[in-house]
C-alpha cells in the first residue's frame, strides 16, 4: 500500500520516535493516521502496518476493536460526532443527537446513502465547559443548538 507523501514522511518521522526495536509503539497512531486516508482499517491496511512494524497481523487486530476511533468500515466524508455525556447531556446533548438523526436521516454509526455524512453518539470529548459539543472529523463545534447544527450541516453539504 502507498500513502500520500505527507503521510509517508510522518510515518518515517514516527518510527524514529520509539526506542530501537520498539517501533511497535507507532502502531496505534499509525493506524489512526492511515485510516484518515483509507477511510477504514481494511485487511490490507492491517497487513501493511504489520509489515512496516514487523509485528504479527493478530497484534494489529487486537488493537482495532479496543480503540473506538479505529473502524473496519468507512464512515462518511463528514463524520459527525455528537457528545451526550454528562455535561452535554445537561445542556441538551441528547436532544441535539436526536435532532442530528432527523436532520441527517440516519441513526447512530450509520452513513448517509451518498456517503457524505455519518453520525455517531460519542463519549466526552473534552468540550464540557462549552457544551453541548459536536466534532466533525477533527473539528470542534461548541455550544451547539439545533439551529447552529443545521447551519453547520448545510454549509458542509454545500462544500461537498
Amino acid at each position: 500500500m502507498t500513502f500520500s507523501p505527507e503521510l509517508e514522511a510522518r510515518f518515517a518521522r514516527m518510527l524514529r520516535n520509539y526506542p530501537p526495536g520498539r517501533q511497535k509503539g507507532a502502531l496505534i497512531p499509525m493506524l489512526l493516521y492511515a485510516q484518515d486516508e483509507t477511510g477504514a482499517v481494511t485487511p490490507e491496511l492491517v497487513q501493511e502496518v504489520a509489515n512496516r512494524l514487523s509485528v504479527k497481523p493478530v497484534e494489529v487486530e487486537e488493537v482495532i476493536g479496543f480503540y473506538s476511533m479505529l473502524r473496519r468500515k468507512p464512515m462518511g466524508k463528514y463524520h459527525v460526532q455528537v457528545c451526550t455525556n454528562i455535561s452535554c447531556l445537561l445542556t441538551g446533548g441528547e436532544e441535539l443527537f436526536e435532532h442530528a438523526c432527523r436532520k441527517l436521516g440516519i441513526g447512530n454509526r450509520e452513513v448517509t446513502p451518498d456517503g457524505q455524512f455519518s453520525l455517531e453518539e460519542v463519549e466526552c470529548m473534552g468540550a464540557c465547559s462549552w457544551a453541548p459539543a459536536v466534532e466533525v472529523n477533527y473539528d470542534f463545534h461548541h455550544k451547539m443548538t439545533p439551529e447552529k447544527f443545521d447551519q453547520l450541516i448545510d454549509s458542509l453539504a454545500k462544500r461537498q
Partner: protein
Amino acid sequence: MPDVTLTINGQAVTAAPGTLIIEAARRHGIEIPAFCYYEGYSLQAACRMCLVEIEKNPKLQPGCTMPVAEGMVVLTESPKVVETRKAMLEFLLSNHPLDCPVCDKGGECELQDMSFRYGAGESRFTELKVHGEEQQWSPVVYYDPARCILCYRCVRVCDEGLGVTALGTQNRGVISEIIPNAGDHLVCDECGMCIDICPVGALTSGTYRYKSRPWEMNHVGTICAHCSDGCKTTLAVRDGEILRGNNRDRSGINGEFLCIKGRYAFDFVRHPERLQSPLLRVNGELQPVSWSEALSAAAAKFNEVKARGGRFGVIGATRTTNEENYFLQKFARQGLGTANIDHRRSGDVVTLLDALSGRANALATVEDLYTAKAALVIGSDLAQQHPLFAFQLRANWRHHQLTAYVVTPGPVREDLYAARAIRSEAGKELEAAASLRDDLAKSQDLVILFGDAIKGDAVRRLVEFGDSLGIPVKYLCLVDYANSRGAMDMGLLPDLGPGYQPTQTRGLNWREMLADPALDVLWVVGEDPLEETALASANAFVVVQDLFLTETAKRADVVFPSASAYEKTGTVTNSAGQVQRLKQAAKVMGVKPDLDIMGLLAKEMGLNLGIWIPDKVFEEIRRTVRGYNVALPVIATGGAAQTGAADGRIPVTVPPELIRSAGDTLFTSGTLGRYSGMLRSVMEAPGTLYKP
C-alpha cells in the same frame, strides 16, 4: 535469602521470599480459587477470584500477584473474602450461559465447581445476555465466545508456552473475545493446549466435543505412541474406545504439555483398515485364518528353516515395548539361533553411550532441559520434531533465562529467543558449533541436543568438544519414535545384545537382510522396511506382526494383527533414556500384543523362552540389562526413571548410513500418522499449516 514466615488462616506458613500467596497457601493445603492464575505463566490478576484479606490492608488483595512477606497475616476464607468470591462469580455468570446440562465442559468445569462451592443458587441478572456465535477455528479447535470468561490462559499458553502467539484479544469491555491469528481460523501447531487449559467450555476439542460426559469415561494415564519425547497422555476411554487425550493433571514429565499427536492422534486405533484377524497366504492370496492356523504355519516354517540351518532375518520396531523387544531378540538369538536382528535407527545413541562410558550424569533428562543454564541444539527443528523438548527449553528460557544456541540448516522456532542461531549446511554442524566455543564455555553448564546430523565419529568429536569447554555438559541424542531408544537398549542390533553387550557373532543389519538373496525367513515385528527397500530373496517366507497391511505385510506369508501401544502394557524408553510404563486404554477385537504373539509362537515351536507376561519380562530386563535396574515404584506410579549410562566401552563402530531420522513433523508420525484421520484432516484443512 531466608524463608519468610507468615500466617494463613491462622496456620503458620513458611515460604521463600517472592513466593506468591496463592502458591504458599497451595503448598500448605489451602486452596485459593483462581481462574486467571496458572502456575508458570505471566500474572494477570484479572479474574479477582483470589482476592484475600491481608491484615492492615484496607483493600482485599489478589493472592495471585501478592508475594508473601514476613509476619503477614492472610485470611482466605473470611466472611468478607467469601462474600467477594460470591460477588465475582455473580458477575462472571451474569453473561455466561447457564446451560451446563448441554455444555461440553459440564462435570469438569472450573466455573461450575467454583459456583458449586461459593456461588449463589439464584441469579439476580435479568438483563439480556451478551451473546456471540460459536466458531470453528480448525478441525480440532472450537471457540464459543459466550462461554469465555477472559482469563487469558489460552493466549498465554500459546504465546509464552509455545511461542506461537496464535491467539489474541479483540474488542474491549464486555464484548471482548479471543481471536485466532488468521482472521477466522488458526494457523498454529494445533497442539490443543488452549483447550486443555481453558477452565470453562469456551474452547472445545473438535474430536471430542459432545461425545461423552467426563464421568462416563475411564481416564488412563499412559505414554504417547508417537515421538520419542515420551509425554504422558491421559486417554479417556468409554467401552474400550478412546474418546480423547489430554493432560489436565500435569503429572507426567511433560507437565501441562501435549502436542497434536499426543492429544488427538489416537484414532489410528479404530481405523477401519486395522487388521483384526491373522492372515495366511493361501494360493498366493492373503486370507483370514484362525490364530492357531496362523501360529502353526509360522511355527512350522520357523522350525523347518531352523532345522536345516537356513537363514533368518529378524527386524524389530521402534514402537513396540521394551519387553517385546527384549523378548524378540531373545527369541531370535536363543530360539532361532540367528544373529541377524536389527531395527531402523534414527540416532546414534550407541556411539554416544560409548563415548560417555564410565561417566555419571552425562545424559540429559527432560527435567534437565528445564533447569540447564545453557542449551545447544544441533541439526534439529525441535518444535516440529521434538515438541516437548522445545517446550521445556522455552519454559527454561522464560523461567530461568536459559541461554540457547542453535545450529540448524534452516530457521527454527528456537531462533526467537536463542542467544545465537547459526545456519549450517549438513555435515558442517560441528564446525559451526565450534564457532560458539567461547560463548558456550562461559556458561555454568550445558545440554547438547543432537539428532541424526551427528553420528559415528562426529559423536565422539562432539563429546571431545564438550569436554574441552571445561564445564559440565550433558547430552541428549534425539531419536524418532516412542521406543526408538528402547529398541537399541534391548539389543535389537546385529552386533550388540541387551544393554549393548557385544555379541560373539555379528549378524546382518536390516539392509543386508533385505539384500540377502538367500534369506529363508524374514520376521518383521511392527516395522515396514519394504516401504523403503525391496526384498532380494524371492523365496523368503515372510512373517509380519502389525496393525495394518503395510507394504511389508502385503508381501507376507503370515500376518499377525497386533495391538498398538494404547492397547497394551509394558514399558518404553524415550530419547532421554527415561523408562515409563504404558497402561492399556483401548480394546480392539481380534488383536494381540506382540509379546503374546511371540510367546504363543515360541510355545507353538516348542521353545522355552520363559514366561511372557510384561511385568515378568521387565523383571528380567531389570536384572540383566545394563542401566535398567530402575526403581520399580517410580515407574509403577506413573513416573519416569532414567536408565543408567553405559559403564564400559562399546567396541563397535556404527555405520553412519544406518542412522537416519524419518524427519517426521508435528503432523506426521510414520505409519501411525498415515492412519490417523485426524492428523490428515488438519494437514488437509486449507491454510492451517504453521511455519514459524
